[in-house]
């Protein structure tokens, strides 16, 4: 009967949805591990605001990256069983991955002063295969999150006596902001985050201004004054 065939179709739906549900549970278990590792790493990295010696902190944090990478490999493995469904479950690890990216890029910046690229980030996480890649938007959002850390970092570094820090951060952030402007962003989450970067930039400019107007220089001498005048 009609009612019976209805029942049968829905029976099938239920089976499929339950399968998808249990897949999701497996994903979530891994994601929760990622989240917890990230949190721990972030917590110890945040000691940079207290001006603890950075290399040590970075060393400790780096050791966690491999743990993260292993988790992402587990994720990749799970999804390999369901080809073409990466984006069906993407929402389950998006936000955690964005935080991971912000962590990685912040660490990289502390070490090198430059921006970790998408490819490099993906490699570090083992997300560089075509089936299980690092979503570009997630990478970019993570970079925005990283930018949010910088004003606080600058403020605390100056308090700790590093008067050259604002200049370095301002240059980096200005370049980063300019690079972002090359992107044609839709009216979405990434756009909103990028709009927020403007405030980071403004805050760093203010800190730089505070240091500059008081003539505070890295070595107690008028370093680079001519350069500044040359630029104006």
């Amino acid at each position, binding site marked *: 009967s009609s009612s019976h065939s209805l029942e049968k179709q829905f029976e099938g739906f239920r089976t499929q949805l339950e399968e998808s549900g249990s897949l999701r549970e497996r994903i979530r278990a891994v994601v929760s591990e990622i989240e917890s590792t990230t949190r721990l790493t972030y917590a110890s990295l945040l000691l940079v605001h207290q001006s603890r010696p950075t290399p040590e902190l970075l060393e400790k944090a780096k050791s966690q990256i491999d743990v993260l990478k292993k988790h992402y490999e587990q994720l990749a493995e799970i999804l390999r069983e369901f080809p073409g469904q990466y984006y069906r479950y993407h929402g389950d690890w998006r936000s955690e991955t964005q935080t991971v990216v912000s962590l990685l890029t912040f660490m990289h910046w502390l070490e090198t*002063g430059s921006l970790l690229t998408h490819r490099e980030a993906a490699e570090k996480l083992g997300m560089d295969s075509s089936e299980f890649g690092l979503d570009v938007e997630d990478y970019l959002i993570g970079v925005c999150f990283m930018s949010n850390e910088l004003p606080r970092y600058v403020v605390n570094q100056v308090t700790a006596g590093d008067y050259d820090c604002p200049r370095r951060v301002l240059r980096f952030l200005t370049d980063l902001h300019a690079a972002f402007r090359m*992107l*044609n962003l839709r009216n979405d989450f990434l756009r909103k985050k990028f709009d927020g970067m403007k405030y980071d930039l403004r805050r760093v400019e203010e800190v730089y201004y505070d240091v500059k107007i008081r003539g505070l220089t890295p070595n107690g001498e008028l370093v680079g004054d001519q350069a500044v005048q040359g630029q104006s």
Partner: protein
Amino acid sequence: NPSKRARTMVTESAMRDAFAKYAEYLNALNEKRERVVKASRDVTMNSKKVIFQVHRMSKYNKEEIIEQAEKDLTAVTDQYMSRLVKELQGTDFWKLRRAYSPGVQEYVEAATFCNFCKTGTLLKLDEINATLLPLSDPSLEPLKINILDYLLGLADLTGELMRLAIGRISDGELDFAENICRFVRDIYRELTLVVPHMDDSSDMKQKMDTMLQSVMKIENACFSVHVRGSEYIPLLGSNDPSSFLVGVPDIEL
């Protein structure tokens, strides 16, 4: 320190190169999404017209109306769904789902609505997907409407069925209304078992509430006709409660 300056410039230009790639990627994605959204919007608009067409039904013109609605639906499939299918081909269907989901849902609503009016049964997901198959390039993976969009479309269907039922009762087509009532109850019941397993059930839960309201509106309408009809049985001396409404000569109007 010129070397430092040089290094920074290198860094900066490396960043720009990287971002140029991201920009390229995002532009391509956004343009595709934009096209898909537009296609989806057209599907929505034209599916709504099909639904409106079905609502123009009266007791006397049912066949013509449904026939016309089916023609309209075929046109939607051929003209608009095919465009959507083309835009999507070869792409990851899940990635752009949010861009085309509204259109697909409305299409499901229209297709199942037509089908119910014609056959009194539920058009299955596989059947819909079968009609979409010829639209895509055989070398590529065809677009399949996913379960979620199908179920979301069904949820909206019950609202239209409710409107239809009220209209049918007005037209004296009690049996038709009772069929709708049964059908909607079945769908509602089946959905209660499936919804908790859906990926993102938050908006579906709200639709379930609306659906229960629709079911009850139909039930109340049937009740109302029933008690009214029962009252007249002694007056009319008839034994078939449904006959009284149909029995009123409409020509008088």
